[in-house]
C-alpha cells in the first residue's frame, strides 16, 4: 500500500518520498518526477495536482526471450473522500475498467493489466460524489514497476481527471471530459478557440455558456457566421435572445436530458429563445430553407416550443 501525505493545503511530494512509500522495491519504481499538489481543503475550487503520469512500453526480456507481461498500473490515491468510483478509459474512448473504494481515508486502488504499450491519452475519471464527499481526492498517479519503462512524462491536474499534457492548458482538462463522459468523439487542441472566431452579436461569455473557469470553447466559424446571418435576417422582425452555445461534456451532462452526443459539445450548434410560432417559423425558413445562411439541421418545433435549435452536423436526422 502506498499512500500520499495527509490532508494539508499544499503538499509537495518529491519522487524520493514516493519511493519510500512504495511497497515494491524502491529501485523498481520508475519514472516518477516531481509531484506536487495544491488543495483547498475541501472548500471547493480547483485542486491542482501536477507531476507525472506515464506512457509505458514493456521491454524485451532477454533471459526468457519474451516480452515481459507484468503490465503496468495506474493508481488513484485519495485522502478523505467518502467513496470513490474510478473509471479508466482507453485512448479511443472505450472503457477499460472500473474500480471502486467505499472505505475512507488513505485508500488506494488501481488498475493493472494495461497493454504492453499503452501510449495515448488514457483517462482516469473519478466520481467522488458517489456516496458522499468530505474532501477532494488527494491525488492520482500512474505508476509502474520495472520492467515497465517510462517513455513519456505526463502532466495531470484538476479535481477528477488524469490525462496527458497535450495542449498545455485548460483545453487538456476539457478534452479529458469527452472520453470520461463517453462522448463518441474527442476534440484536438486546434478545435478550440479562446474568443469568438468571427463576427457575432453574442458575446464570448454567451457562446461558452457562461461556464467557468474554462477560457476555451469549440466554436465552428461556419456555425457562428451562419448564426450571425440568421440574426441579420430575422432581427428586423423580432428580437433574438441567445440560449446556448458550446457546452463542455460536464456542462452537457448537467443539462437536463441533453443528448449524449449533443452537437453543442461539437461546437456546431446554437439555441435561440423564440416563443412565437411565427418567429420560430421564420427562423426555420431562414436557417434551413432560404439558403442565405447555410443549411442547418433544425429540431422540429413540436419538440422545442420555446427555443430554436440549429446545428451544422451535415446529414440531419430524418425529420429535422
Amino acid at each position: 500500500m502506498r499512500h500520499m501525505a495527509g490532508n494539508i493545503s499544499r503538499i509537495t511530494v518529491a519522487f524520493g518520498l514516493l519511493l519510500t512509500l512504495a511497497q515494491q522495491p524502491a529501485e523498481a519504481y520508475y519514472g516518477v518526477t516531481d509531484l506536487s499538489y495544491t488543495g483547498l481543503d475541501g472548500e471547493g475550487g480547483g485542486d491542482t495536482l501536477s507531476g507525472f503520469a506515464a506512457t509505458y512500453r514493456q521491454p524485451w526480456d532477454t533471459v526468457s526471450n519474451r516480452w515481459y507481461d507484468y503490465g503496468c498500473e495506474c493508481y488513484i490515491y485519495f485522502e478523505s473522500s467518502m467513496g470513490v468510483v474510478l473509471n479508466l478509459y482507453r485512448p479511443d474512448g472505450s472503457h477499460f475498467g472500473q474500480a471502486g473504494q467505499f472505505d475512507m481515508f488513505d485508500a488506494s486502488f488501481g488498475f493493472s493489466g494495461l497493454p504492453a504499450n499503452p501510449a495515448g491519452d488514457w483517462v482516469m475519471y473519478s466520481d467522488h460524489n458517489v456516496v458522499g464527499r468530505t474532501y477532494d481526492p488527494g491525488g492520482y498517479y500512474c505508476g509502474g514497476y520495472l520492467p515497465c519503462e517510462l517513455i513519456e512524462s505526463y502532466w495531470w491536474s484538476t479535481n477528477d481527471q488524469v490525462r496527458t499534457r497535450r495542449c498545455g492548458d485548460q483545453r487538456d482538462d476539457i478534452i479529458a471530459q469527452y472520453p470520461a463522459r463517453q462522448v463518441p468523439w474527442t476534440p484536438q487542441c486546434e478545435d478550440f478557440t479562446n474568443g469568438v472566431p468571427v463576427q457575432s452579436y453574442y458575446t464570448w461569455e454567451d457562446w461558452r455558456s457562461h461556464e467557468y473557469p474554462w477560457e476555451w470553447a469549440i466554436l465552428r466559424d461556419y456555425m457562428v457566421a451562419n448564426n450571425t446571418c440568421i440574426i441579420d435576417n430575422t432581427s428586423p422582425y423580432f428580437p433574438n435572445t441567445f440560449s446556448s452555445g458550446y457546452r463542455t461534456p460536464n456542462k452537457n451532462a448537467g443539462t437536463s436530458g441533453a443528448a449524449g452526443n449533443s452537437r453543442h459539445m461539437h461546437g456546431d450548434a446554437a439555441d435561440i429563445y423564440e416563443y412565437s410560432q411565427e418567429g420560430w417559423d421564420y427562423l426555420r425558413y431562414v436557417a434551413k430553407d432560404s439558403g442565405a445562411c447555410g443549411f442547418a439541421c433544425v429540431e422540429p418545433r413540436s419538440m422545442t416550443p420555446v427555443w430554436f435549435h440549429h446545428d451544422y452536423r451535415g446529414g440531419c436526422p430524418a425529420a429535422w
Partner: protein
Amino acid sequence: MCNMRNCVARIGALLLFMFLSSPAQGQELSQVTSLPWQDRARLVRSVAARLASTTPVAADEGMKSDILSLLAFENALVRSLFVQGVGTSGRYGEGYSEYYSSLLEVAGVVFPQVKGPSRQAWLRELATSPHNPGSKFSDWLVSHGDEVVDILIAATTTAELDHERSNAFSDLTALVTSTSTNPVRARSIPVALSAANRIRAIATLQEGLSRLDRTSREIVWALRRDPSDEVALMLQTFAASNRGRSGFTSYRIGGSQPPLSEEVDRAIAHVRAAVAARPQ
C-alpha cells in the same frame, strides 16, 4: 391512434417482443417495463439495427402493430408537452428528438411491409408526426402520392395542433410540386398522383393561400423549395391577385415576419432563376 393510457399496454407488449427476440438484452427487461424514454430509444435502435442487418428481419403483424402503437404513444407525448409549453426537449433534452427521428426511420422501414387498410392508419399517424417541412421524412411521406393525399388534405383542417395543420399544407404543396412537369429538383422517389387528386390538392392549397396568414407563407416557402414553370406561374398568379390587399403587402401588427408580398417576390425571383438555370 391510441391515447397515452392504452398505448402503455401495447408498448409493453412491443418491448417484450423486442427483448424476447433479442436474447442479449433479455436481462434488462426489468428496466424497460418502467418505460423511461432512454430505454425505448435503446430498443428502437436495436430494432433498427436488426431491420438493417444483412439478413433483415421481416416484421410480423404483431410487431407492425406495436411499432404503430409506439409511434402513436410518442406523438401523444410530444403533443402533450408542447401544449404545456415545455416540449420534449425541455423535459427530456435533445436526445429525445434524435430517438424520435430514429423511430420514424424504423417506421419507414416497416411501413412497406404493411398491407391492407391499416396502411391508412399508419399514414394518418405519420402525417401528423413531428417533422420539418422539406425534411427527408417529408419527402418520404409525400412519395406515397395518391395513398396519402386524402390524409394530408384532411390534416390541413383536422390535425390537432396549428403547426401540424401547417405541416400538412407544406407536405401537400410538396406533393403537388413533386408531380409538376419538368421540375428543377429531381426526386429520388417517384411520386404517383392522379390528375383528379392533384386538382383536389391544388384546390386545398389555393384555399390556404387565400388566408394570407402564416399558412399562406408556409405554402409559399414550400413552393419555393421545388422550382418549376408551374410553380412560377402559381406564385405569379397569387401575387397578382393579392397585390394591394393589406394582409399581403403590409406588416401585420405584432407580426414576426416581413410582409407576405416580400416573401412571394423573393420566391418568384428564386424560382425563375432556378428554372432559367435548369439544363435544357
